[in-house]
Each structure stands twice: as C-alpha cells, then as structure tokens.
C-alpha cells in the first residue's frame, strides 16, 4: 500500500492553484457579503436620503446608531434574548447529553425503540404543533414567560441534540465506564466526571447550535411573548422595521438591525474555526 502511494506521488505532483480560482472566490465573496453591505449602507443615512442603496452615501449620518444606542429597546431585546439563550442551552445540553448517554449504553429493544421515536420527533414541523402548543401554553400560564419559551425551545432542540450525542457517546469505549464503576463511581458521577470531558468538542458545537437556534427563533416568541417588556432581539428588530412601513424611518430600523446582528456576527467570526469544524465533525457522523 505504502509503495503504491509513493509511486502515485511520483507520477502526479500536487496540483497548483489555477488562475480561475480567484475570480470565482471573489464572486462568491461578494454574493455572500452583499446583504450585510446593503444593510450597513442603508443605516448610515438620513431619513430624507433616498439615493442609491448600492453606492455609499454622500453624507454619512451616524445619528441612527447613537439613537439606537441611547434608546432602551435594543438593550431590552439583548437582555431577554440572553436570558432565553442561557436557559435553553443549559436545559437542552444537560438533559440531551444525559439521555444520549443512557441510550448509547443501554442496548435492547426499549432503547432501540426510543432512538427510533426520537428520529421521528425530529420530523415534526413546529407549525403543525402550533395550535396544540399555543393553547397548552396559555392554559399553563406560560405565555409571556421567558422561562416558558426556554422550556419550549429546549424541548424542540432536544431530539437533535440526543441524536448527535448518541453517535458520539457510542464511540467512547465501555471500558472507561467499567473502570469508573470498579472504582465505585455511580452512573451520574461517571457521566459528569468521565464521559462529559470526552465530549468537549461536540459539546462546544452543540452549545453554539442551541444558542444560535434560540437566539434566532422567531415563530414562538412572536406568538408567546406579546408584552413588549418580554420582546426578544428579533422581535425588537421586527418592530423597528414595522414602524418604518412606508419608509418612515428605514435608516433607523437598519441601524437597529445592524446592531442587533452584531453580537452573533462577532461571535461567529471569533469562533468560526470551531463552528465550521464542529459542523464538519457532526455531519460526518
């Protein structure tokens, strides 16, 4: 085998980058950065400036950003979203990993059935449950409650989390558990002290996915959180655009939107290496 590879290496030298790679890269880059550019471009304007959205404004106007920054809406949205994200992530990751550990280590008909049921749940469209969920949440007084929303979105994300974790736990050898058991560790202790540290990489990925999923959630907050004091950041941005119907104050809405997107984009750019690697790892399982 090794000789073969050596032979191939001799015959075929590593291919050099070709010229057309660069124009294609540039095209893709522009295609994907354009919406952000347009959004920023529209936000640095005065209300009366209805000139081209494609070219930079003649007069830069930063007052929208100052207004959004000094206003209370953006901060309210950040605060509520942050609460929901933290609660959702903790519930979803801890319960999901624990259940996945249980499923991966117990073989037999019950665990097989549970895994299949879990796969089936992943196919249920959220909207199909809308009537059932909403009337249930109202009856339990969980509407207009951030914790209620967190429970709901953690439940929605759990099947996917369990599915991914199960694939990763299976790859951890049983002998680790056995060694821990001989040393007298219980199941829960084994899970937190032995298994979880082995799952660091997938846990980071899962935290990021769960957090962005719940940060970006629009459907359930829109229906469940009717009071403005409970609005998430997505609802705040939506409200900003709605007030600007008929271009009343579009630049201000764009500034709200740009600032609202800022945390997630900064986090993405800082963590992109882990996010993309995590996505690569979880899709090859």
């Amino acid at each position, binding site marked *: 085998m090794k000789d073969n590879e050596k032979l*191939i290496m001799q015959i075929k030298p590593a291919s050099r980058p070709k010229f057309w790679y660069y124009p294609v890269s540039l095209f893709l880059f522009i295609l994907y*950065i354009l919406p952000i550019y347009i959004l920023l471009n529209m936000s640095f304007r005065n209300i009366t400036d209805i000139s*081209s959205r494609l070219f930079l404004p003649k007069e830069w106007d930063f007052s929208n950003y100052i207004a959004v920054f000094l206003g209370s809406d953006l901060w309210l949205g950040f605060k509520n979203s942050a609460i929901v994200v933290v609660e959702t992530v903790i519930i979803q990751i801890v319960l999901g990993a624990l259940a996945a550990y249980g499923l991966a280590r117990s073989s037999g008909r019950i665990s097989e059935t549970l895994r299949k049921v879990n796969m*089936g749940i992943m196919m249920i469209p959220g909207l*199909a449950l809308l009537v059932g969920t*909403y009337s249930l949440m109202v009856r339990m007084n969980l509407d207009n409650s951030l914790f209620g929303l967190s429970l709901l979105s953690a439940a929605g994300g759990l099947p996917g989390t369990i599915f991914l974790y199960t694939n990763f736990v299976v790859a951890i050898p049983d002998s680790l558990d056995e060694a821990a058991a001989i040393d007298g560790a219980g199941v829960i202790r084994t899970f937190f002290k032995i298994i979880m540290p082995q799952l660091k990489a997938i846990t980071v990925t899962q935290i990021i996915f769960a957090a962005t999923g719940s940060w*970006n959630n*629009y459907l359930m907050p829109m229906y469940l959180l009717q009071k403005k004091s409970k609005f998430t950041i997505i609802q705040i941005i939506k409200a900003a*655009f709605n007030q600007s119907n008929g271009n009343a104050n579009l630049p201000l809405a764009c500034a709200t939107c740009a600032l609202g997107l800022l945390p997630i984009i900064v986090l993405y750019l800082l963590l992109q290496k882990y996010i993309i690697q995590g996505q690569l790892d979880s899709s*090859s399982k």
Partner: protein
Amino acid sequence: MKKRKYTYLCLTIPAAILIIWFIFIPLLNAANLSFFRWNGYSQNKKWINIENFTKAFSDKMFWRCLVNTLIYGFGSCALQNLCGLFAALFLNKKFMGRNAVRVVLYMPIMISAFIMGQIMYYFFQFDGGVFNEVLNLFGVSDVYWMKNGWTAVILITFVNSWQYMGLCMIIYLAGLQNIPAMYREAARLDGANKFYEFIHITLPLLIPAITTAVVTNLIGGFKMFDVIVSMTGGGPSKQSMSLSYYISTLYFTDERAGYASAIGVILFALIIVITLPVNAWLRKKEVEY
C-alpha cells in the same frame, strides 16, 4: 454491567418528560382538535368528525399552499445540494483565501431567517430595490419582481437556498474529506479523466453525505415559514404562503383552530410520506468501501 441497564434507561427520563410535555401532548392536542370546529379560545367546541380534512380537499387556498410547500421543499433541496456540492468541490482545492470564502459562505446560517428575509425584501423592492438598481446600471429598466405568486415563490426559494447553501457545502466537504485519496489516485492511474473520476468514484462514495444533505434540506424546505413572513408576508394576495404560514393565519387571523390543526396533521403526514422513502432509497444506494 448488565444490572445497570435500567439505570441507564432512567437517564432518559428528564429529557423524555420535557419532550412529552412540550411535543407529544401538543401533538395529541392538535390531532384531537383537528376533529372539532373551534375558534381557538371559546368554551364550546363542536365535534365534526373528519369534516376538517374533507374541507381541505375542496379548499383552493390549501392546494395552492400545498403546491408552494412542495416547491419550497424540492426546489430549495435541489438548489442547495447542487450549489453546495459545487462549492464543496471548489473549496476542497488548496488555494490562498480558501478559508475566508468558506467563512463567508457559512455566515448567513448564523443569521435569523426572518431578518435575512427582511433585508432581502429591500433587494426585490420595485422602487429603489437593489436588484433593479443593478439592472439600471446596465441600462435595463425596472423589473417588478413580485409580479405574481409564482415569481414570489421562486425568489423565496432562491433566497432560502442562498442562505442555507453553506450547510450542504459543509456536509459535502466532510464527505469529501472522508474519501481516501488512493481511490481517486487509482482511477487517475488507470487513465480516467476528471469527469469519469467524479461520476464513478467521488459521487458513489459521497452518497452517505448526500442522504444527510437531501433529507435535512427537504424537511427544512417543507417547514419554511420565517423567511416568507418577512419577504412577502405571504403575498401577493396570499399566493406565496406555505402550509406552515397557512396554519398560522388560519389560527390567529381567521380563528379556525380546528381546521388549522387538521392542516398541521396533513403537513406532518406529508413530510413523513415524502422523506422516509427518499431516505430509504438513498440508503440502499450507499456503497461499502
């Protein structure tokens, strides 16, 4: 260790409680409500047997939304897989700036579909929209992008595919990296050209990745909701609504909760009836190596 089997199963209980509470009970609740006429809040519900389901078949709006949902599902699945595959093949090559392109292609996935639709709305606006402005630069006059339902549906499909293409790309990149280099080198030694190598070596070995990408995108497309709300609001004249969107307007605007749950049951059935066979068919095609 056998004694621990049931202890292990007990670990699933907390997650199971949450899933039963927030998914199973609502599902049963919705399935039950689909047999009633109910406005969503009053005390009196009237049992009407399967009338909600039979009504759907003669409801023009339902058929329109069903066709739209199928276009959203299959259209964005096809577009994302094709573009994602080409993007992955392209980014699998080594060149400077490759990582930057990958980072930018994946970025829209981090942004809420609702917000993305809102931004894209300003691209397709008739008056001063970005795309019309680009056309004007080339001397072409303004195009009315949202002229009818079909153009709106196609544009929404494109925007959704553009936004989530990066996911397919990553799935295929992972698949490509799992293919041992020696297979392709062997084909090359045998004198295969690039096209032959791709069709007969790369593609068959990519089928596990294709299965994942196709199934997730089909389900995602059938569920589409957020981006439609912000891009077209279901318009023009409700012609770009998906079944999901129809359910929400039926429930919250028309106050027909029973009928809305019936459509929800139909949507769930649709997803299962389409994705399970597709999944099974693709799995059969997987080759061992």
